[in-house]
């Protein structure tokens, strides 16, 4: 199943991923895929514009470095502002997800007024 994700959702997930430490774009994609399983299989390309937008917002910053295989890679890192944004947004999305779950899991039919 291919899920079209909202920008906002993807951004929060990227922030969460980077909260573990610096990581390159490919790594971020892998990690989200591993954590979310098939349900969250994102189209990999859409990750990069999200990263650039987060960089523009000042929530993450980037620098070039060398990967384990000695390749030149661009590494992203969470900024203090990004950490604050993650805190604020993570709970928001959790609430949202719970609310959606409640609605979809409801056992009572809506009463007709």
């Amino acid at each position, binding site marked *: 199943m291919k899920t079209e994700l909202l920008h906002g959702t993807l951004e929060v997930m990227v922030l969460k991923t980077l909260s573990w430490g610096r990581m*390159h*774009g*490919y790594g971020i*994609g*892998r990690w989200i895929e591993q954590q979310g399983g098939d349900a969250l299989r994102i*189209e*990999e*390309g*859409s990750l*990069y*514009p999200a990263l*650039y*937008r987060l*960089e*523009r917002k000042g929530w993450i910053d980037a620098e*070039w470095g060398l*990967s384990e*295989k000695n*390749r*030149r*890679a*661009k590494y992203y890192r969470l900024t203090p502002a990004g950490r604050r944004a993650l805190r604020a947004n993570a709970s928001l999305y959790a609430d949202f997800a719970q609310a959606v779950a409640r609605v979809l899991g409801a056992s009572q039919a809506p009463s007709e007024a």
Partner: protein
Amino acid sequence: MGHPPNEPSWRRYLRFWRPDAKADVDDELQFHLQEHVDDLVARGMDPLKARIEAVRRFGDMTQIRHTMQELAQEKETRMRRSEIFGVLKQDAIYALRLIRANPGFASAIVLTLALGIGATTAIFSVVNSVLLRPLPYADSERLLVINERFGEGLGQASVGHFYDWSEHSQSFTATAAYQGRTFNLTEGEPERIRGARVTPSFFQTGYMPPLRGRYFRPDETEASRVTVLSYGLWQTRFAGDTAIVGKEITLNGEKHIVIGITPAAYTLTRFDERLWTILTFTPEQRTNYGAHFLTVFAKLKPGVTLNQAQRELERITEDIRRREPENMKQRGVQAQFFSELLIGNYRTQLWLLLSAVTFVLLIGCANVASLLLARATARRKEIAIRGALGGGRGRLVRQLLTESFVLAFIGGVTGLLVARFGIRFLVTTGPAFVPRLTSAGLDPSVLMFALGATVVSGMLFGLAPALRATRVDLQSELRVGGRGSGGLVRDSARSLLIVTEFAVALLLLVSAGLFLRSAQTLQRVPLGFDPTGVTMLRVALPPDRYQSPEAVQTAYMRIVDQVRAIPGVRAAAASTRVPMWGPSIDMGITVDGRPRNPDRVETGHLRPVTAGFIEALGIPLKRGRMFRDADLAAGAPWVVVVNETFVRTIFGDENPIGKRVYGWTDQAKPEWREIVGVVGDVRAFGQENEMPPEIYMPITQLPQGAWDAFQRSMTIVAAAEPNAVIAPAMRKAVSAIDPLVPLFDVQTLSDVVSQSTANRRFNTQLLTFLGLTGLILAAIGIYGVIAFFVSQRTHEIGVRVALGASRPRVIRMVIRQAAVLALVGIAVGAVGAWWATKVFGTMLFQVGARDPVAFIAAAAALLIVALAASWFPARRAARVEPVKALAAAG
């Protein structure tokens, strides 16, 4: 996914110099695909298939790559911008730190700039308010005033002219006639109001929407008894009561309905009329071409030029000449723009003041530049070190320029404060009749001007020092140990600044000198009368209660008697006019026994007076006798007294005593009057103007209609001891005769005389002030340069003294430096002034624009100041102890 093949590989090296956003995006994508392929291959996929799979999983590569590049580009632009701001901020902080480190130096510069920018801004705000802003009326650039040309001058138009011009012309959308007059407003406290009678179309020529109510309708006439009030009158007299529209007020004893109120901006000067009533003409008046009392306003049709209108009016006026040759002697027509009539007089004067104050700012900038140059020399070592450490020249220039701009902006902001006070000073002390002067203020265009002046100043005084300071030869500077080795003669930049300062200061001083000389000459012009101790007030008798000439005469004679009885008053009298104040009506004069010369226009200005008026003003008797009380008695023979100009223009060398003349009345029934006395001329129209021929006449012997022409109004004068305050007693005396008659223009004659030169005095004072400021700034400038010269050359002077140079010789050497600079500046300035002062033209009074006294005095003042300013540093130089100087330098 590598680089596109068409992109040269060297492009990648650009990243050494600055980040290459496009290449970074490609590299990042490349890395992603490689990693993915590796992962897939590790899981056992065929490398080729793995690559296809990786690209497929990625999605729309072209689109994503494009989005990423855009975002990256955007980010980089922002970074570069913030980098520039960061540098500027760093420079500004550095500049502020330097300013704090040397507050005396900085405050001298800021103060100079604040005064210069502030004064320039203040005068610009006046120029802006009076000259540059368009008039408030709709399409005001098409508003004209049409006058009759009379000989050399311009005169008012007759009713016949007005109708012919209006009805036979195609150039105008509207024409209107206007007659200024005063009204007795008797709601509550009686008051005399300046106003005008206008044809109903008047408010269409200079149109602004009414604030309340409406303006006159074309079908309304004088009999409609309607009036429009000015905003000012509505506020002061009726306290802004909106219910006044539609109510009745009493003007000259007649009820008028208030139909509208003009907006505040409609009134352009403090002397503008304050209410309007309707002027309509009888059929007889419409064919009258002989009585000239109308001002004609007209609005050009769009696309019609002033010249076209003028030519059309000339054609119409030539038609009138064919029909009315007798009335058109020496007469023509002249249309001009209303704005030109209103502010034309002030244009040269205000631009002159603005140039003068700009020159002062320029001298100030030169001083600041000179100070910065001096400091730049002292900072050579610092700059050399920064250069050696890799500070590029551009970076250093930018740093120094930033310092200059920081100083300029602090100066500019402080200058706004100065400007605020300056504007208040100009508005309160400026001549009262300058239109729109009172609305001068710090509006957006004035603030823009101040900003412009600040930026230009910053560039003027900042650029030269910055460029020069960075032209330092690093090696020699560091090797020599930072001792300034450039002498003054080689210091061409600062020499040039001083020469410029002195040239500009000379120009300012010559201008001030010319105006001072004019004022001085003017002061020596004899008035022809003695205003000392004379107080005047004007009275206008309402026609409803003082209809007949006898009633008017009796009332004025009684008022004069009452005033004369005031203790301390040594003489009292009445006249329709005092010199320099009040209405003046001239009339054609015919001499008994002399044939009328159709080409010659002989006129005299009529002055109805009571006995004793000429004596009260101290006008000297030249021939014959003054009026006696008996001349004013009923049935007395008709007599007149004339002035010397009257005699000279009409009788030449002939003795006029006993000659008979008439004027005003119809030729068919001449009323002969005998000349019994000749008195001295007075400066009736101000000290700068020619003296008119005048004819004094007892108020009991006036020609028919004269009281209507003078609006039954007279000036009462009372002579007492100088400084005696008799105005209240005079008011009481008039009220004792008629408590309902309004009094106005209560003032001393000395004030009247002083007002007549107020504009000139204002100009002269401002120019003198600016000239002196220029002088002081030039003195400070040359002092700074010479003092710096001495301090930089202590070592050399020490050597000279050690080698036997006497102290006077050292002093001479230093002063000579100053004198050379000052003299070159003065010479340059004199050449400039020689050409520039021509613009003064008629603003000078009996003083040539190249008056040698003004030139020599200005040059001498500057030279003396230059020598005096260099004396102190020279003395310091002479006191140099050779041993100490050499030891310090070693």
